[in-house]
């Protein structure tokens, strides 16, 4: 309600001011055209680059200096720090990039935004930009009408640039003409009060226009028309830098933790930078004067001097914050903990009473912008599905997941872990912790953005099949658990032992797969998976003769024979399905979609020969 009221009042004031004076209307129209140009440019670069920015960002995540460089170069090129921020947040959310690198990109983007001020003050104010704007607009509109996506993107970029130029020209002309009606310099405030008032004004203007770039260009054009003083213009630029973080903070409210971490980093950086600039504005102005004389900038060329000031205070901010980047990232991770990293734990002796819904945490709308980013988020969500399934399966085996992951001998742990009667229904746990994630993964895999490469399509298909296997493995464990409970206190010691062996077999397999998933050596992982495959085959009591021996000896009660046979089949199938899922997850995580090593995976029949040979030896 308040928001709507504010919007109406603002609209009435805007129209009223336009009605009061035609030149105010011209300045307002200039700002509007400029902002529309930025939107068009932003939209155009998204379509035109077709993932190039994302690919570039992917390559610039290994070193901090590369991240900063990426931020500087791309923001200078696209003239939009918000576009760079959005892509960075999507990378952080999907796990393709760490927070430290994300902060690096934001630092770089802050330096990159300074190039806009240079371009306008050095070129934009000297020539009539509308001369260049018109051909750009004409060509741009023709290109937008094309069916080819790249041409359309280029069209948006050209119209965006055209509108930017036109907007600047309108603002420039508006301010020049407005001078004869009203001299805004009479509102200039000198000293500390002026610094604070105009910083606040810059902040407010940026929050309203949602663009620090627009505030800065408006300031430069007003300064060029001698409508504001140089000192007040400096304060406006500082305010714009703080204002842009307010926009980022509003955008991060309700976002996942990576988004909030990055918005907080942006706020800390810009606030510290602004504080330093406010405290040391006089020495900085002297530095600007000195550098201007060195670079041959005239003493009365305040627009260029403002650009220089803007650059100096942003570069100083980066230099000041660089040594604290690591600490800042660690602190932010503590403040805004990534709840997605908390793995599901189901204590074996208790019933699970949690009620809150289990929803996907990586597959958010912000990551569905580029195939690589979306695929990475899909993988992270699958890893979560795997973790939840491990917890549910451990619970079904009457074990804690910590038992599965501990280095203690599992046979000893099993001897001490009783089969509890008062536990949650595995079906309920499956419905709560496994099914919703699987549904989200499969749904997302059908809505991946952009064109997937053949390798990516293969990966997505393989992952879907692996998900099906995992879900079926959990369901099989559910069936197995009924008899684990039924026969754990049976008078037949052999039957008891056999069901304990089933529990041990699956617990052992989960333990080994969990550790193979963390192997850094891919060849070792390949061998590890093959060994597990072979091991599961050897454990089959029907094949290794244990079942026949038990039945022949008459030590298994007749009513349990069919159950034992069926449950051995369940164990075998669960084993194969788990190995299949773990393998797919491992190769997809290493980025080897159709890697050379994947082509070395032995098929069932290739392992058959091997295990039979070993068994006969």
């Amino acid at each position, binding site marked *: 309600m308040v928001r709507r009221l504010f919007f109406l009042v603002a609209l009435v004031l805007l129209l009223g001011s336009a009605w009061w004076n035609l030149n105010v209307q011209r300045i307002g129209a200039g700002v509007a055209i400029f902002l529309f140009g930025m939107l068009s440019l932003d939209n155009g670069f998204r379509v035109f680059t077709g993932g190039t920015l994302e690919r570039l960002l992917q390559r610039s995540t290994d070193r901090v200096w590369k991240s900063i460089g990426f931020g500087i170069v791309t923001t200078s090129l696209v003239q939009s720090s918000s576009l760079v921020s959005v892509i960075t947040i999507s990378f952080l959310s999907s796990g393709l990039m760490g927070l430290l690198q994300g902060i690096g990109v934001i630092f770089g983007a802050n330096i990159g935004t300074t190039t806009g001020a240079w371009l306008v003050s050095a070129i934009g104010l000297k020539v009539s930009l509308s001369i260049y704007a018109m051909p750009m607009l004409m060509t741009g509109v023709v290109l937008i009408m094309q069916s080819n996506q790249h041409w359309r993107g280029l069209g948006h970029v050209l119209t965006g640039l055209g509108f930017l130029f036109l907007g600047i020209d309108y603002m420039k002309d508006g301010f020049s003409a407005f001078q004869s009606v009203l001299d805004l310099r009479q509102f200039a405030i000198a000293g500390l009060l002026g610094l604070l008032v105009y910083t606040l004004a810059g902040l407010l203007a940026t929050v309203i226009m949602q663009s620090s770039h627009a505030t800065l260009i408006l300031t430069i054009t007003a300064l060029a028309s001698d409508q504001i003083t140089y000192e007040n213009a400096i304060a406006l630029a500082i305010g714009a830098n703080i204002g842009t973080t307010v926009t980022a903070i509003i955008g991060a409210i309700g976002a996942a933790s990576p988004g909030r971490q990055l918005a907080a980093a942006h706020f800390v950086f810009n606030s510290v930078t602004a504080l330093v600039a406010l405290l040391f504005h006089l020495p900085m102005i002297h530095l600007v004067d000195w550098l201007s004389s060195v670079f041959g900038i005239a003493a009365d060329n305040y627009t260029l001097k403002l650009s220089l000031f803007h650059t100096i205070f942003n570069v100083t901010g980066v230099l000041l914050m660089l040594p604290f980047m690591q600490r800042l990232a660690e602190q932010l991770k503590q403040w805004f903990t990534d709840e997605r990293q908390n793995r599901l734990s189901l204590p074996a002796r208790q019933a699970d009473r949690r009620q809150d819904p289990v929803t996907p945490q990586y597959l958010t709308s912000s990551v569905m912008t580029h195939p690589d980013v979306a695929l990475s988020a899909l993988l992270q969500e699958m890893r979560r599905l795997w973790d939840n399934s491990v917890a549910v399966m451990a619970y079904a085996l009457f074990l804690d997941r910590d038992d599965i992951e501990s280095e203690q001998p599992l046979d000893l742990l099993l001897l001490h872990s009783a089969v509890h009667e008062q536990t949650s229904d595995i079906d309920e746990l499956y419905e709560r912790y496994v099914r919703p994630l699987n549904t989200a993964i499969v749904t997302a895999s059908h809505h991946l953005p952009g064109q997937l490469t053949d390798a990516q399509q293969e990966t997505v298909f393989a992952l879907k099949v692996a998900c099906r296997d995992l879900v079926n493995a959990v369901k099989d464990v559910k069936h197995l658990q009924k008899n684990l409970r039924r026969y754990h206190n049976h008078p037949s010691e052999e039957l008891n032992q056999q069901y304990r062996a089933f529990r041990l077999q699956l617990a052992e397999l989960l333990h080994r797969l969990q550790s193979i998933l963390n192997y850094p050596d891919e060849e070792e992982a390949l061998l590890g998976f093959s*060994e597990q495959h*072979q091991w599961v085959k050897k454990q089959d009591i029907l094949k290794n003769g244990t079942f026949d021996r038990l039945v022949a000896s008459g030590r298994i009660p007749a009513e349990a024979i069919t159950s034992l046979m069926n449950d051995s089949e369940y164990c075998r199938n669960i084993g194969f399905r788990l190995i299949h899922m773990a393998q797919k997850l491992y190769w997809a995580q290493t980025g080897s979609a159709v890697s*050379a*090593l994947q*082509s070395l995976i032995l098929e069932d029949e*290739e392992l058959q020969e091997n295990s039979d040979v070993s068994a006969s030896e």
Partner: protein
Amino acid sequence: MSQPPNKPKWQKHLRKLLKGKADTDREALQTALTDLRRKAVELEARLAQAESNDEAQRLKDKLELIQRHLKKGEARLVEWDDQKSKGK
């Protein structure tokens, strides 16, 4: 014996860029097979020093698995080369 000088990094990158996907896959497979062969040699050495029958059996099984992976990989290389020559 003197070692051949390392090529500059940019040359390696350029070569990688100019290569087709099939070439890159083939090269990766060859590297993987070399690594597996190295592992096999290491396992043979460990097998010779195995202290118990159980350990020896475990190493033998692993060695056999490596041989199967190698066999599969070598067959894949031949298959790729055949496809390439037919393609030409």
